[in-house]
């Protein structure tokens, strides 16, 4: 049932009860009025009877006085006589007044008055006769029984009037009884109805209260459900009212914005959820504002970042939707967003993987295609140069050819050398990998008489694509070998460190060459940036960085210990694989064992004096 109807029901119930009470009061009042009237009539009837009786008594008193006087001649008997006579007229008036409303009684009054007057006159005459000195005449008058007859007549009239009054009394008493009964009945009835009405109304209201309580409980349960759902959800949720003031933040939103729900509540969404364009750092259009304007779901523009209260930026994706009630009225806006940092990273890793996979396929093919002719040319040139009886000029020309070939070889080595078509990761033993690279560069290292300092600590195997890692180490060692002077030193450190709960392999490649000029540092890892104009492609370090980052690691130029001159490259690689498997092959994991290099690593120290 709808709430308005319920309200009307309750109001109607109360109105009905009120009306009942009012009617009851009116009825009771009327009944009481009737009762009072009836009671008054009854008491007047009684008074009339009493007054008639009194009249008779007065007459008897007067007569008794008269007789006393007549017998004794003592005038002291005249006092009661005169007292009674003087009261007779007022008594008659009283009776007339009391019966004024009764026409039949009124009709009797003149006769009564005449008889009483006649009786009084007769008594007065007897006394007057006696006083005139004729006591006997007076007694004679008494004995004529005129007075007796008069008295009887009066008694007759009085008796008639009394009869009438008694008849009236009985009628009035009956009416009075009935009125009382009726009053009681009406009070009982009204109270009964009121009780019934109250009981009905009370039960109805109790039922309503219960229903409302149940309804409220349901709403509370549902609100709790919504609250728990929004709180548990993995995305950040902010709700606002239709003015854009924040009404709700779930814990994820609290974390991402850096605002506490209690403090954020009521504040404008623009303050709580400040977003900017990642690239331009200009404030971005707030989706809540837009939803309030356009009234439909709005997605967030690309490259949006949320400014946390601590000043950091979080790349986010979000959408905002209007909240409407059952009538479609806009109540507010709900904003859902999430941190896309890790997604970005994953996408970036995927992009790198795809790029490297494509590059791998290309370079593997190219390496083969270039290395074969290089081999042929190298062999032929060497053969020609070392032929007996070759003129000195030709030998020097061929030596130049060999030097040029060296450049080509260097470029191929650095850019195409170690890519494999397979991007599968395996457990790579870093010590062995580093040694294999030294072995590959042994000629170069020997030719410049370079000393190798190995600082090999405990370094767990790294889950990685070994060919790519070899390319990384190879590029760094080749660079170092290029940089150092004759009899220079290349230092390589292997160790494991803990960073943010993750075990990382730390590879530090140092040389005591001239070092990297500060102005080059920002561009060092850019593609095609090179300081070695003759032999550099500018791809080595760029490629190195690409590979390291694809493995979830990072590479940077660091200052050398104790501010020694030279350059130092530090690589941090997570031990467990962060490499996206998107471009991976069969995923077969093989151990790169040090024993694999048996026969290739001649000795602990590759540095050997040349003759």
């Amino acid at each position, binding site marked *: 049932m709808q709430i308005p109807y319920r309200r009307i029901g309750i109001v109607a119930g109360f109105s009905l009860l009120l009306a009942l009470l009012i009617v009851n009061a009116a009825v009771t009042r009327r009944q009481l009025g009737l009762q009072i009237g009836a009671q008054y009539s009854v008491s007047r009837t009684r008074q009339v009877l009493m007054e008639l009786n009194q009249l008779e008594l007065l007459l008897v008193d007067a007569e008794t006085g008269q007789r006393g006087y007549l017998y004794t001649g003592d005038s002291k008997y005249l006092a009661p006589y005169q007292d009674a006579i003087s009261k007779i007229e007022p008594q008659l008036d009283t009776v007339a007044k009391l019966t004024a409303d009764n026409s039949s009684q009124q009709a009797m009054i003149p006769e009564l008055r005449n008889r009483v007057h006649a009786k009084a006159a007769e008594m007065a005459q007897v006394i007057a006769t006696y006083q005139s000195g004729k006591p006997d005449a007076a007694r004679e008058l008494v004995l004529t029984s005129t007075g007796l007859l008069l008295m009887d007549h009066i008694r007759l009239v009085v008796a008639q009037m009394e009869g009438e009054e008694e008849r009236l009394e009985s009628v009035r008493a009956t009416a009075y009884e009935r009125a009382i009964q009726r009053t009681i009945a009406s009070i009982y009835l009204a109270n009964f109805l009121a009780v019934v009405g109250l009981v009905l109304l009370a039960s109805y209201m109790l039922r309503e209260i219960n229903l409302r309580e149940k309804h409220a409980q349901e709403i509370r349960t549902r609100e709790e459900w919504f609250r728990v759902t929004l709180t548990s959800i993995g995305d950040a949720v902010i709700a606002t009212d239709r003015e854009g003031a924040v009404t709700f933040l779930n814990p994820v939103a609290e974390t991402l914005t850096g605002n506490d729900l209690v403090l954020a509540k009521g504040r404008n969404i623009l303050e709580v959820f400040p977003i900017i364009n990642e690239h331009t750092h200009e404030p971005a259009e707030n989706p809540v504002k837009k939803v309030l304007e356009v009234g439909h779901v709005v997605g967030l523009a690309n490259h949006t970042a949320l400014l946390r209260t601590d000043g950091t930026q979080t790349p986010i994706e979000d959408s905002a939707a209007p909240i409407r009630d059952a009538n479609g009225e806009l109540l507010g806006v709900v904003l859902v967003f999430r941190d896309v940092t890790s997604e970005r990273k994953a996408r970036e890793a995927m992009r790198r993987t795809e790029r490297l996979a494509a590059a791998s396929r290309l370079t593997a093919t190219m390496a083969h295609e270039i290395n*074969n002719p290089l081999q*042929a040319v*190298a062999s032929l040139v060497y053969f020609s140069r070392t032929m007996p009886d070759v003129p000195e000029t030709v030998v020097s020309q061929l030596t130049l050819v060999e030097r040029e070939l060296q450049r080509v070889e260097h470029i191929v080595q650095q850019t195409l050398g170690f*890519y494999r078509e397979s991007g599968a990761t395996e457990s790579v033993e870093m010590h062995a990998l580093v040694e294999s690279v030294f072995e590959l560069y042994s*000629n170069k290292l020997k030719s410049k008489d370079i000393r190798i300092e190995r600082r090999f600590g405990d370094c767990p195997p790294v889950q990685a694509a070994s060919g790519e890692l*070899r390319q990384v180490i190879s590029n760094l060692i080749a660079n170092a070998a290029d940089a150092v002077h004759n009899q220079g030193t290349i230092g390589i450190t292997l160790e494991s460190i803990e960073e943010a709960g993750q075990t990382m392999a730390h590879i530090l490649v140092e040389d005591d060459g001239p070092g990297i000029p500060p102005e080059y540092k920002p561009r060092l890892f850019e593609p095609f940036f090179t300081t070695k104009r003759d032999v550099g492609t500018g791809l080595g370090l760029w490629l190195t960085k690409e590979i390291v980052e694809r493995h979830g690691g990072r590479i940077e130029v660091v200052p050398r210990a104790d501010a020694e001159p030279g350059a130092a490259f530090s690589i941090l690689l997570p031990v467990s694989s962060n490499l996206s498997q998107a471009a991976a092959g069969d995923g077969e994991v093989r151990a790169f064992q040090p024993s694999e290099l048996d026969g290739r690593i001649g000795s602990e120290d590759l540095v050997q004096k040349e003759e």
Partner: protein
Amino acid sequence: MPSELLRVFVVDDEDVIASSLAMILRFQGGFHATSFTDPTKALQAAHSDAPDLLISDVVMPQMTGIDLAIQLRSVCPDCKVLLFSGTAATTDLLEAARVTGYKFELLLKPVHPADLLASIRTLTEGAQTPSSQKPQFGL
């Protein structure tokens, strides 16, 4: 120089590589070197005239250098093997061979003939360091 000439098979599907290397080995190394462009032919020849050393490319159309080396070992177990390849991807093949019990040394193309000669000497004469022929050629 050994009294008897060392017999060397050079196998590469590119004739220019195989023959030029064989020439160098003959003239500079003083070996009895024969070149093949088809590994199956090399295998056949080995039956009648077993080599002391096999220098072979890895990726070839008929069979890989690794397979060739493995089969050649069954013919002449004492035969030394040097593989060379133009692509680092062959380390996977080499690894596969190693798992089955064969261990071969791999040189990356382009390998300078002087280095090749040095490697051959290391392989055939033991740990002696070949330095006399060291050219001014490096990475």
